[in-house]
């Protein structure tokens, strides 16, 4: 029950409470650029969700086995190669940023080639988004979140994948909502100065305001799940009166 509760908390946290776009400000460039029409926005959302999961999978494996301080592979290589140095715990976490971005760029290129070869129709509809995704901050942000938790030894593969997928879902929710609003904006009489990105930002601000309503939800779910109400004074007093004599 504990694992499932934790997963639920991560999922809702990534999708709604700490929405990637509206709270952490990652992935703003495609959010402003591609949210003009509903279908392209949804296509972009799915593409980002797919690539985020692929990148999260690879980056978790890299972090867990290579980049984490005291990970298996460097320790193993070290013992193999230079047994006598008995070097202290080897820490390759310095390489993490470069490895993540390398993995993301490579996986996006690989996916683009694969989709162009085997699904030309799919490629025609949202193939144009794929190069856009390499410079999308949301993907690297997801990898960084996973790295932070894996380094602190809190998360395994399942939690990382849940964060990635629901992060992508959160991104899709935000961009589809914005696309719906922007299509209405076409009919509205927007002042000249506000046309284009300015009105989108203002609307995004109001959307972020709405999403801020979710902030308290995390704490309440945590309380509901772990069944622990606030440490009620009763049980503390019982324990202390039991053995008041030192």
């Amino acid at each position, binding site marked *: 029950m504990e694992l499932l509760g934790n997963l639920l908390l991560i999922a809702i946290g990534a999708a709604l409470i*700490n929405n990637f776009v509206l709270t952490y400000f990652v992935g703003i460039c495609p959010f402003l650029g591609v949210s003009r029409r509903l279908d392209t926005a949804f296509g972009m959302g799915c593409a980002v969700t797919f690539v985020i999961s692929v990148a999260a999978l690879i980056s978790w494996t890299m972090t867990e086995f290579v980049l984490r301080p005291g990970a298996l592979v460097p320790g193993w290589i070290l013992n193999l190669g230079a047994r006598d140095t008995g070097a202290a715990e080897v*820490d390759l976490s*310095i*390489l993490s940023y*470069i490895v993540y971005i*390398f993995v993301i760029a490579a996986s996006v290129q690989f996916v683009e080639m694969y989709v162009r070869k085997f699904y030309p129709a799919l490629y025609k509809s949202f193939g144009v988004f794929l190069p856009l995704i390499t410079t999308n901050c949301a993907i690297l942000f997801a990898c960084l979140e996973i790295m932070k938790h894996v380094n602190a030894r809190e998360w395994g593969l399942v939690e990382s994948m849940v964060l990635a997928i629901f992060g992508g879902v959160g991104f899709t929710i935000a961009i589809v909502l914005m696309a719906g609003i922007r299509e209405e904006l076409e009919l509205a009489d927007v002042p000249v100065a506000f046309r284009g990105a300015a009105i989108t930002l203002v609307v995004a601000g109001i959307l972020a305001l709405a999403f801020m309503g979710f*902030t*308290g939800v*995390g*704490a309440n779910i*945590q309380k509901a799940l772990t069944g622990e109400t*606030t*440490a*009620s*004074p009763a049980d*503390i*007093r019982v*324990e*202390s009166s039991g053995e008041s004599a*030192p």
Partner: protein
Amino acid sequence: MARIRDTYLGQAWLVLILSLVFGGTLAGVHVGLNDRIEANLRAETLSRIPELVLGDEVGSRPDVVLLEDGMEVQMADGSMLAMQVSEQEVGGHQVFEVLRGDDRTRLGWVARGAGQGYADQIEILIGLRPDAQEITGLYVLSQKETPALGDAITGLPFRSRFVGVPADRAVEITKEERAAAADRSKILALTAATISSQSVCDIVNRTVADIRLELGK
């Protein structure tokens, strides 16, 4: 030579060379700066300890000189006090035992606690008297509470409300001024940030409950 050139690796020779060079430079930077960063991390927690343990004898934000295994603190009356700090793991919390430099008498304890706040995790340091019966100080290490409302928990007014609170009874939140003044265990909540104040009290209660028994001996 031409044959190698058109193999898969041949085409990407620039990427290979760059990755080799960059890997090396990064490792160099890492070796150069790593211990400095370690020191920063440790310093952030250690520099808070005197203030938490000695409270107003040292005054808020004293200047602390970090030595190899301990530190020197400038007391309110100008004299320098040497202190040793030993780190332990008690009841699942990182706990520092603070000893006086010269005669190694125990000055107090500092425990690290964390819990779910209103928006995200809150991490705090709690100072306790040597016999762990009373809280001598509180410091918020990290929080993401609502700015201008919840983040007042890092302010001195709110933190000083915990000083002198008995550790054997749980801490509670009240809204009225009078109740807080009457009973030390009742903490006056921050206006419009009750959940944040309540979260801090929960964390304090849970941490104190976890470690009070061992430390008391």
